[in-house]
């Protein structure tokens, strides 16, 4: 065999090997995505606990760093929308950690408020990632908005780690901001998360979301969507049925994105509060 032919044959073998590895990796991640999906609440459970709702969830990659979570503990429905550091595989790992911790903290039942769930979650994440505030360690964390809705007393609580919550009632958007600290280690020493207690009026719609929508580049000048247009959009569509709102949001997102690639995972959860539902 001439040297040229020998070289060509080696290159072909290497190409094949790379292709095979890539295929195996993709298959492996795709399989992981089934596991991740299984960890997310089923639409049936969501429908049962929040009959009038929508979940707009569009991961950037096969697996996602955003996740949503819902459960009912005694008379309280607890809903969380979270955004983990990174997207793709690293984000997915964090999301699994987050979901597991949420199950554990809420399952243990030692929380007294929405803020205390976030406090306990932060302890769990710090412990799991051995975070002690040293320079060299992993700074990964989770941003989260969590609310507790007591179906008996109609009390509504919200606490946020960066992620805000929007309520639209009487055609007005109320913005409640979370604390400026993540679930995980931060530069500043840990402080308690603030629990906001809100009086919800029947017919109000509540929105919890990650920053995937507002941070998406697009439009005529390739800029971010930003919060104010997002709020305007929600106000505009808030009267529509929930499934229609999801469509409108998705359409607006895709229209804005145009040919730009999706930057981050996209997650918006919205629900309408009706007294009779509970």
């Amino acid at each position, binding site marked *: 065999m001439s040297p040229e032919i020998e070289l060509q044959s080696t290159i072909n073998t290497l190409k094949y090997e790379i292709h095979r590895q890539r295929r195996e990796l993709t298959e492996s991640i795709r399989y992981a995505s089934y596991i991740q999906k299984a960890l997310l609440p089923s639409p049936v459970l969501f429908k049962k606990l929040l009959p009038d709702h929508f979940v707009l969830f569009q991961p950037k990659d096969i697996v996602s760093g955003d996740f949503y979570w819902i459960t009912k503990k005694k008379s309280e429905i607890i809903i969380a929308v979270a955004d983990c550091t990174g997207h793709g595989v690293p984000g997915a790992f964090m999301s699994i950690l987050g979901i597991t911790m949420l199950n554990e903290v809420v399952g243990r039942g030692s929380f007294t408020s929405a803020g205390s769930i976030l406090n306990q979650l932060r302890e769990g994440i710090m412990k*799991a990632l051995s975070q002690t505030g040293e320079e060299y360690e992993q700074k990964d964390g989770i941003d989260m908005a969590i609310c507790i809705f007591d179906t008996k007393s109609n009390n509504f609580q919200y606490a946020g780690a960066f992620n805000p919550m929007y309520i639209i009632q009487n055609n007005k958007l109320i913005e409640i901001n979370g604390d400026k600290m993540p679930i995980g280690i931060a530069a500043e020493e840990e402080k308690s998360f603030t629990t906001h207690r809100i009086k919800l009026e029947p017919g109000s719609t509540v929105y919890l979301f990650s920053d995937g929508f507002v941070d998406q580049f697009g439009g005529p000048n390739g800029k971010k969507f930003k919060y104010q247009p997002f709020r305007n959009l929600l106000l505009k569509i808030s009267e529509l049925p929930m499934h229609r709102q999801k469509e409108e949001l998705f359409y607006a997102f895709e229209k804005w994105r145009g040919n730009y690639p999706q930057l981050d995972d996209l997650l918006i959860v919205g629900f309408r509060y009706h007294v009779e539902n509970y």
Partner: protein
Amino acid sequence: MKLKAFRIRNFRSIVDSGWNYLAYDNITALIGQNESGKTSVLEALYSFYNGKISDDILRSDMTFPIVNCTFILEGEKLADLFNSAEIPEPIREKFLGKEELTLIREWKADRSSIISIGDEDILEYYLKKEEEKRSFELVVQNEITELINRADTIISEMQLAEQEQLDARNEMNHWQLQLENVKRTLKKARNADTRSNLENEYDTIQKTYIQKEQQFAAKQKKFEEKKQLTQEISEKVTVAKKCLDAIENTRTALNDLDYLGKQLKEAEHIYEIFTNEKEKKNALQKLEKLHGEYHRIRKIYSECQEKEILQKLLTDKVFKGQNYKAAEAEALTEIQNDKKILSPEDFGTILLKYIPVFDFFEDFSSLLPNKIDLEDILLENEHTEGFKAVKNFLVIAGLTSDFFREKNHRILKQKIENLNGEITIDFQDYWRQNVGKDNKIRLNFELEHYDYTEPEKSGKPYLEFWIKDRQERLYPKQRSRGVRWFLSFYLELKATSIQNSVKRILLIDEPGLSLHARAQEDVLKVFEDLKGSMQIVYCTHSPHLVDVNKLYRVLAVQRADENDENSESVILDSKSLPEASTDTLSPIYSLMGAKVNEQQFIQQKNNIIVQDTVTYFFLQAMSEIFNLNKSVHFIPASGINGIQTLANILTGWRLDFYILLFGNGELKKAAEDIRNSHFLSDPKSADKKIKVFDDIASVENLFSTIDFKRYILQKRVGITESNSDYIITNELSRTLLASGFISHIKEHNISFEDFDEDTRRNFSELFNAIQSMIE
């Protein structure tokens, strides 16, 4: 400048202490058991300052000590300390914003050391330069390799051309011979046919000959060209050869140095193990010879390094086409310019003059002796008992060795008499102001001569010291250790203040060792008075030399493996104290016990018995900031068994008491026992008097996790279990945590509102329960 932190490596039992920070208020205590390595820390700091190490400091693993110290700048402008032309521009810029600086001292095999600046941002510049130098050297080496390969090819080609030229010449000569042969034969030939054939043959051969002649000319030309190329490259090859020789010389010198270093270490070891005087003498001779050799080779090594860099610069320039002479001149100038720029070592040497002076006060050398041979003083024999104290005394007295050369005995006596008076007055002031003692202590010294009772020293002079107290005239060692210690300490302070006016760091080994408790507390009082003018670092295992309210001043030193005295020493700062062993922390434990004893806590009524001192400290501290309406008096029992005993005592004294307990299991049973023994006839009263919080395992669980971490643990870590479980799992000392908590809330003026909602709610509920229990 002020010492902020230190890091010690390869120093006796210390492998790597990590960075340790001195207390911000200038008093730092190193606590630990005997042989834990406390004194090594002080010695390492002292060695950092004076550069001296003794043989026993070296570790057996062939590593040499390194000590880093970080200093806080107190208004000093770094750039002003140097000749500005000598500071590289990027470093000058970095100096502008500097608030602290680090110096590193490293020792070598021959015990010599270098001190250099150790700030990473400054070193970055030198590392970059070093990297540039390395890549330059690599480029030069590659160029040399390339040149040698090229030269090799050129020489081979030239040799080949030469051979080809020779072959061509031979061939040409061959055809020339042929031609001449045919020519000769032609001349002789008469036959027309033969002549015609020969003429044809002649023509053919002539053609071939001409062809061969041309070929030879071409080969000759090629050879000349190759020869020319070889000549051209040969100058470069000569330079490259010199460069390679220089590299090889450096490598050889380094190998020799390594080899000698090992031999030196071995010889030292042999010297140490010999006990026989003759053997020791021989070993010492060998050692000294090796030391000399080591110094010689080190010098050679430095010279080789310099030559190597010169050759590399030169080679690079010649390769780039410069002529040898010009290249050499330019390379030398570059080296000279580089030398002018301050190196990290130059910075270190200069900065050493501006850092505080480190003084070491340790009993053997610093405590005033009864007497000392004048010879030892004049010969600077540092290892004589009391040497430093006597030197201090002489400095204060303003005496030099000339003073003792006065021939007239009467004048000398008179001079000594006058000096004795002056020194005593000073010390009395100090003694009164700092220690609060009024007894009039006088310090005298005399010059005496040994008599026949000590035949070996007979006739030799010595200095004798006396401490006079009213009528008594006693040798220093006959006086109490307290007086002797304070007097010697005074001599140290006074002498160093005379010698230098800059800031000082006083390193004190076991201050007031074997002094009684009160005297030790006096030592601490003196430190408090001095902390405004100097930094004090001392080691102790006495509880009386540690302030329980200032545990941030404590660094604990202990062996990594408690049961192995040969394991390495580790240093734990105040935040990590709970991780220290019980033995190491014994001074603090003793102190906590002593503080409980000082409380006047048993009153006529509202006495509340709690299960242990830790619970007591937490509740006492929290009740003070909670502002309880009723005054309550918590009384700590010494564990479960102590509760019953205390209840019995208070009942016997007819004092009113309540019992407050956390936890279940045995505690609950103990509460039941008291209920049966004291309130059998009055179960309602028992309900009122005994309160057991069985869902709260211990008092620490009243704090939210966040507050537990912030105020008690003082550490950022994820905690998913209860606070009490965390303490148990991590084998932390509850006593230490309680002590740290008290110091923290006092120092930072923490109020009840500073705690978070959960903590406030838990304590409010508890204190309200206590108030209603009392009412």
